[in-house]
């Protein structure tokens, strides 16, 4: 998987040095999902993470007796998966393709192991994951304000 061709469009990959990019490329693979296919399930082992090349991924909440409800959607260039970096490495949501979607998958276990021995890499990856987590927190706070309600 040649990551350099999609580097500029990926929030994750633009942050990496060439050496780090080579490392990520060595543990990457293409993923192609048709509309409605599940990328990962809530509670599953978070042993991969992804960047979207094209299409959309919906993060869903499932509950008994009702259809899954999408709580957030992610588009091209965005990182899918934050839980892979934090113990206990379990997904908190279901991720499902909304239309045909192409992604690049990374072996989270391999990257975590590399981070154990390479603190510079760990710091860089932590920065990317934390930035994404903070961005989602900000967006969630705005959503919670219910800005568009009648007043």
């Amino acid at each position, binding site marked *: 998987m040649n990551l350099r061709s999609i580097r500029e469009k990926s*929030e994750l990959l633009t942050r990496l040095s060439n050496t780090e990019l080579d490392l990520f490329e060595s543990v990457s693979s293409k993923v192609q999902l048709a509309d409605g296919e599940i990328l990962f399930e809530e509670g599953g082992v978070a042993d991969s993470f992804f960047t979207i090349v094209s299409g*959309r991924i919906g993060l869903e909440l499932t509950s008994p007796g009702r259809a899954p*409800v999408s709580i*957030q959607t992610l*588009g091209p260039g965005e990182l899918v998966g934050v839980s892979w970096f934090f113990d206990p490495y379990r997904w908190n949501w279901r991720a499902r393709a909304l239309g045909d979607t192409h992604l690049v998958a990374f072996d989270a276990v391999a990257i975590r192991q590399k981070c154990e021995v390479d603190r510079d890499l760990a710091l860089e990856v932590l920065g990317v994951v934390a930035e994404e987590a903070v961005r989602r927190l900000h967006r969630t706070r705005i959503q919670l304000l*219910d800005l*568009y*309600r009648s*007043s």
Partner: protein
Amino acid sequence: MTVANSMVSGPVTEAMLPRPFRVISHRFETPDTVTLELEPDDGADLSFAPGQFTMLYVFGVGEVPISISGDPHRPEILVHTVRSVGAVTAAIAGLGIGDRVGIRGPYGVGWPVGHAEGRDLVVVAGGIGLAPLRPVVYDVIARRDRFGAVSIVYGSRSPIDLMFQEELHSWRSRFDLQIEVTVDRSDESWFGDVGVVTGLLPRIPFDPERAVAMLCGPEIMMKVVANELETRGVAPENVYVSVERNMKCAIRFCGHCQFGSDFLCRDGPVLAYAQVSDRLRVPEL
């Protein structure tokens, strides 16, 4: 008395006189939002610039400022989209075909569509904020070759609150517009995007150095979007917001809408974000 005479016949008084218009069409956009088409009794067109507003008077109830949501290339029909949130807007929503209202205007400074010519245009609307921006879209479509990439990003509370759905589908079917729609809360019927409008900005094509952005919606939304655009390289001078507060007379007479050094009814409602960003952070204003 001299004073009394000047009050009943002066320019201010004349500007306060409404023209009668008749409702010729009434359509619910959402459960609490209606679009009215109005025709003037006197037959004279009401030409306007995208972003301008009128004072809409329901006889015996009251008067409110409402942005024009129609096509500037069709001045013979005045179109308003109104959400029922108070006594006057509830009365407007309850109007029927043939009912009459009073109209003053149009007033205010509209969107700088001319400034956007030759540039990429980013339109971001939240909730009923799409109504004041719809004339921009009509105008751009009518003169599409004069603009670069044109994107419309629209956020709503939920799928049922999405306005102008037929037009959103129509605009989305064009190859020369990019339309992105998101809702804060989805339901089982919704297969589109979920999340705040800022989350959609990375998807739209624009050159930050030659882009003009027009934002309309809750002030918090506009601030968040303006900040995100600035992060992406769009200068605040090229970001425009619609600040709609406390307009009463619409002729810079009563002072209710004074916002720092500007009177929103005459100097706004559309203002450059660079001009008002500091003021938008002052709770007392």
